[in-house]
């Protein structure tokens, strides 16, 4: 991993810069955090959202926007999204996304790569291709990628493959299990 490690609780906005790839890794691919981020970015300008795991919640984003502005439609009309349902589609989706000077959010990038019907070598090849496309996008705008853990350990290498390329990796810390002394009374 070439970047630093943060815990997810931190504010992502200040570190968003062109040329930076930020990875957020949590058990649910930062479901809530990513929607908050989309809404925040939507208030500031155009955003491209690429959804690889059916994680995008348009109503939730609309609600979040409503808490911040009365002019929802302006923000809603600059949140551009596309969904991919297979890793092949994710590859096509990324390669057909133009490089623009705006933030990109890739939700649950690896979800479709965890599909056990896709051979491991094919998942590896496609992810490599996706990562080169992500590098192209990084040159024109900040890219945030959210990730969730694989169902099977055999696909852990995909996570490492993405994190190795990231500038910052934010990981949600699992709640610490502290030994507690039972009370006497």
């Amino acid at each position, binding site marked *: 991993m070439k970047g630093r490690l943060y815990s997810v609780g931190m504010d992502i906005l200040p570190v968003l810069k062109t040329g930076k790839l930020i990875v957020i890794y949590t058990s649910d691919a930062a479901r809530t955090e990513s929607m908050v981020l989309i809404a925040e970015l939507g208030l500031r300008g155009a955003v491209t959202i690429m959804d690889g795991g059916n994680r995008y919640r348009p109503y939730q*984003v609309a609600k979040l926007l409503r808490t911040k502005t009365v002019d929802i439609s302006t923000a809603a009309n*600059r949140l551009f*999204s596309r969904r991919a*349902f*297979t890793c092949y589609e994710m590859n*096509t989706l990324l390669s057909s996304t133009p490089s623009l000077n705006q933030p990109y959010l890739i939700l649950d990038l690896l979800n479709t790569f965890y599909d056990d*019907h896709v051979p491991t*070598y094919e998942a590896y090849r496609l992810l490599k*291709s996706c990562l080169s496309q992500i590098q192209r996008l990084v040159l024109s705008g900040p890219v945030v990628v959210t990730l969730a853990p694989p169902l099977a350990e055999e696909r852990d290498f995909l996570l490492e493959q993405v994190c190795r390329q990231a500038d910052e990796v934010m990981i949600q810390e699992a709640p610490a299990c502290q030994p507690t002394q039972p009370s006497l009374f």
Partner: protein
Amino acid sequence: MAKAIGWLLDVYAEDDGINLWLLTDDDKRLHLHMEFDITFYAAGDFNLLRQVWKYLKEKDVKLERTVRRDLFLGERDVMAVTTSNPAGLQKMFGELQRQFPSLDYYDADIPITLRFIARTNTYLLGRCHVRFDDEWIQSIEPLSSPWEIDPTPIPLRILTLAPDCNPAIRKPKQLHVKYGQREYSLSLDSPRPFLIGLKADLQRLDPDLILTDYGDTWLFPQLGAWSEETGIELNPNRDENRQIMTRKADSYFAYGQVTYRGAQSHLFGRWHIDRKNAMSFGEYGLEGAMEQARVTGIGVQEMARKSPGAGITAMQMLTALCNAVMVPVQKQQVEGTKTLSELIRTDHGGLIYQPLIGLHGNVAQIDFSSMYPAIMVKHNISPETVGLENAPEGLIPKTLRPLLEKRLMLKNILSDLDPRDCRVEILKARAAALKWLLVVCFGYLGYKNARFGKIESHEAVTATSRELMLQAKEVAEDMGFTVIHMYVDCLFVQQEGFHKPSEFTPLMNAIEEKTGIPIALEGVFKWVAFLASKRDARVPVPNQYFGAFQDGTLKYRGIELRRRDTTLWVRKIQLKALEILARANTPREFANRVPDVMNLMEDAKRELRIGRVPLDELVIRQRLSQTIEAYKTPSPAAHAALQLQAHGRQFAPGQSLEFLFARNGTGVHAWELEEALDSGKLDTKRYYKLLDRAIQTVIDPCKPLLMPERLL
């Protein structure tokens, strides 16, 4: 040159062409061969294609540069790879794809039966005329179409084999054999005489279909093991050069749940269908499976085990092949860009109304017939035509049109037949089989693994359906009807003084004229109840209702009776309760019948308390949604699985578990455990709760009618 006329039973690939089995008019089973070249295509970067050329030119294939049509990209320069070895295609393509993964491949994984149909126009189970020399076919001519409403029945020889118990629970002692009117049993005590007996039966009877219980998961694997043990060779294939083709068990996620599919044993030259491992066999039986095979082009033994989705995919592939459109190995089309506003506006399902909670008298239910497929055909909705004006008929409507027409014709014939007519059951099975293909065709527009799917076409269908439902509602209200409920493709309407079916005909005609989609009267309810949420009585539940038609027939949706995890005992009592209520002709009479229902419930509880309810009626059936180890808090099914695992049984996600609620540490007792549950240990209170809930469901709707009297 010899000639023969008959039904085409089986087609499969061979190293030097294909094998065909024909059931002739003079009751012979002909094994024929046919030369059959197969072509697939590769497209992409020309430098890579040049490397492919070099890689393949050493192999026994014909290479050619040509132009073919991709449904979305239009004409493409492709490399055509032709082989005369259909059986070796899969291996050769697998190696090629590994070597050159970034190319686009087409027509490389099409089932051989579909290629055969596309080339000869001769369908499986269809009649044909063949001319052959020394078993090699020189010409083949179709004599029937899969779209015939009344195909000539095939005189199949069917051998049924079923063990005397579920082999997963205990070791079977006998195998019941049935052939025509004859029934007998073969002892399983000693493998040698059993194998000799079965082998003799197979040779003597020469069945076209071996219909088994647990054939996939027990009988055929066991036959192999016994054969090895005893040295007695037993090949159940008609093609003696072939061995049984086995497929491993697997679990997959489909239609919102994890499904387990047991290992499979396929035969060559004859069919094997395991009734316990065939996906929808219970619903439409052999007639339905054969109807699906006929129209989809997938072999009967495959189709019986596959989901209707596989059938609709095959039909789309066939349409593509017949229209010179290439079938991609991997779909690459992605969703177009949408803004948040557009996504919120378009990403919806069908229209679901909030019904008026409670009991309603004289309500008609009218349904659009096969609404979604009809919309796709009428409005030409297909992945490649969506958003285009005046586009030529798309691939999906082209595929669905004959299917839709055939089902409507079968339904019309059925509605004219006397219910006692011997053809009714067969026609019903065939109509149900076609219905399932039509049901899934919509989902496949948006399904991730569909070859020709695009999410926008999926959205276009639901958007059109919502519009049509609103148009239907407006028509009904203009004609003075109250719309009590609307659910995706059906409406529940009521008007004071209207209770005869004929009184609703003008409404249906008006809706059909307005929407252009056929609509039919499901029936007129004497009373129908729409249920409230159990959590909040003010909120209606759109997909839960029950009612009695004028002839006393019941219809119920979403209640305990329809749930697979409801015990037979609860289902029986709830059905009896509904039958009591069905005697009521009005909502008021319904309320008067409630005391009878309460008595029924008390009697049922008493029967349970004194141990008069057979334990098998109390069995609960639930699926494992994940591996047992993955459960943090084991579900009752997981507890039952753990009990059986202690006795050496293995379970995969999607497998169903049967158990009883018991007063022990885990609260369950696996039904398949050798030691039976002591009836004193049965958790009767838990069963009372289940029954209370089921009875509450059916009497709740009349509460408002009972309240005033109580208050008075």
